[in-house]
């Protein structure tokens, strides 16, 4: 029981921080950089990706003992493609505005390396429950990075936060939009693709800085090895 709990804790840590798909594995950069110009679309794509990861990991784990090893990759790809199609059709039916806003990037989730990566690296080797949980955590980690990027870029670029939330959540969500400031000149670069790369770079740097600080704190006192110098060193 104890070790089971530890396994799940480890999965949370891996997915959200230590092995975060966006910040550490740098997988799925194309949607990460392309749709994160506002918090609402970032959240939409993040949730969709999370759902896809959860479902594909579950299915792949369920069929892992029946798939011949030699053709596992095509099978996984078929599974992923069907799941993405289902989610795309669902979004088409129930969230048409968001579906239009995200456009090509919903079908492109198929090509997101995280999905096939987790299927191959984790789900095909583990039981259903841990696999599903891993998919959920990786998806959450990815969605969190997407949302952070989206929020930062939206605040810098257009001075609002969560504009267009009604596309995602329905009409009541218009109240969620926060107008932080009104500028005559928008900082266009933050909304354009180069801004995504810049903000992404700063996010990765921030994560590394936090890691370095934690590592420095947790560093145990090193035992110094004393050794006698036998060669002459001229200075």
């Amino acid at each position, binding site marked *: 029981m104890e070790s089971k709990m530890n396994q799940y804790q480890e999965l949370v840590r891996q997915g959200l921080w230590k092995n975060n798909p966006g910040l550490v594995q740098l997988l799925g950069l194309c949607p990460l950089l392309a749709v994160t110009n506002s918090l609402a679309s970032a959240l939409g794509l993040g949730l969709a990706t999370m759902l896809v990861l959860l479902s594909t990991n579950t299915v792949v784990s369920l069929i892992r003992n029946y798939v011949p090893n030699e053709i596992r990759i095509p099978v996984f790809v078929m599974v992923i493609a069907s799941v993405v199609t289902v989610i795309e059709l669902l979004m088409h039916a129930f969230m048409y505005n968001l579906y239009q806003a995200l456009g090509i990037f919903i079908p492109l989730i198929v090509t997101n390396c995280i999905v096939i990566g987790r299927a191959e690296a984790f789900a095909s080797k583990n039981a259903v429950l841990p696999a599903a949980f891993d998919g959920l955590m990786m998806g959450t980690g990815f969605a969190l990075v997407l949302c952070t990027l989206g929020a930062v870029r939206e605040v810098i670029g257009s001075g609002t936060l969560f504009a267009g939330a009604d596309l995602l959540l329905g009409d009541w969500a218009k109240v969620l939009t926060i107008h932080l400031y009104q500028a005559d*000149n*928008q*900082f*266009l*670069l*933050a909304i*354009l693709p*180069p801004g995504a790369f*810049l903000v992404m770079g700063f996010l990765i740097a921030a994560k590394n800085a936090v890691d370095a600080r934690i590592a420095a704190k947790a560093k145990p006192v090193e035992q110094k090895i004393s050794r006698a110098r036998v060669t002459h060193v*001229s200075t």
Partner: protein
Amino acid sequence: MSFKIASSPHQHIQKTTAQLMKLVAVAAVPGIAVQAYFFGYGVLIQLLLAIITALLCEAAVLALRGKKVKVKLLDHSALVTALLLAVAIPSYAPWWLVVIGTAFAIIVVKQLYGGLGNNLFNPAMAAYVLLLVSFPLPMTSWLPAAPLQQQSLGPADAVCTIFTNFSCSGYSISQLRQDADGISMATPLDTLKTDLSQGYTTEESMKKPVFGWLSGEGWFWVNLAYLAGGLFLLQQKVIQWRIPVAVLGSLFGFSFIAWLISPDTNASPLFQLFSGATMLAAFFIATDPVSASTTEKGRLVFGALIGGLAFVIRSYGGYPDAFAFAVMLANMTVPLIDYYTQPRTYGHKSKGAR
């Protein structure tokens, strides 16, 4: 006893970075003076703002990185970056423009890449591109040269306009840009581009007062002043002839061919050489020792690439002037150029020979 053994080159000019940078700043003085005469005292205020921002940012980042702040600040490289950016943006642009640009140049483009000597891109030009892409309107709001301005602007007007967007007598930037007929005037390059797209020929377009003599009222003299500064730098051996000659030669060559083929839809080569930022870019920006190519042949290729790109972007691109983009694109190719133009080491055979 120990002998001091240094690697080659054994003879070099004993000039420090600080001295070189100071010479660059001195060489830019005539250009700045002419610019201030034709385009208003605003350029001096922009300079002041840029230099203050650059020094503050440089000092802050150096302190964060645990470097010796005073020594590094006094190499004046931040000063030159600030100077190049300040003269590149319109004289009466709002104050935050130059502040954002300089901070980006120093913090992101220069220091995050590892400080002086490690930056891949020319900091001033990267910042200019950032500003141009982000704020296209204020970045292209050049006032017409002084003889064409309807309102005469004094030093106080420059302060008012830069900090409040309105001159002391209450004119906005777009009003200040208007001619006697109330039509706002663009830079010569911009005017020519618009006219050509509307079906005028070059000759018809050139009759407008904004072109003045040869290449634009005021712009010709600004370019001439930077040319003089550049020749001073050459004479002082701060820069070498290869990059500027290659830039100007290739810009001249491309525009000459285009002009021969279709003189009605292309500007003359002399217009290209003496308008916009040509001379400033050829002598002061492309010759940045850090982000330019370092081999002799490489410098020729690098300069020719900038000139060619500048011609293509000026003629077919969406922005009126092109040197910032051309320099940045050429900066990207520098590692490749340097790789293929490595000089033969003494004692080794050249790659082709057996």
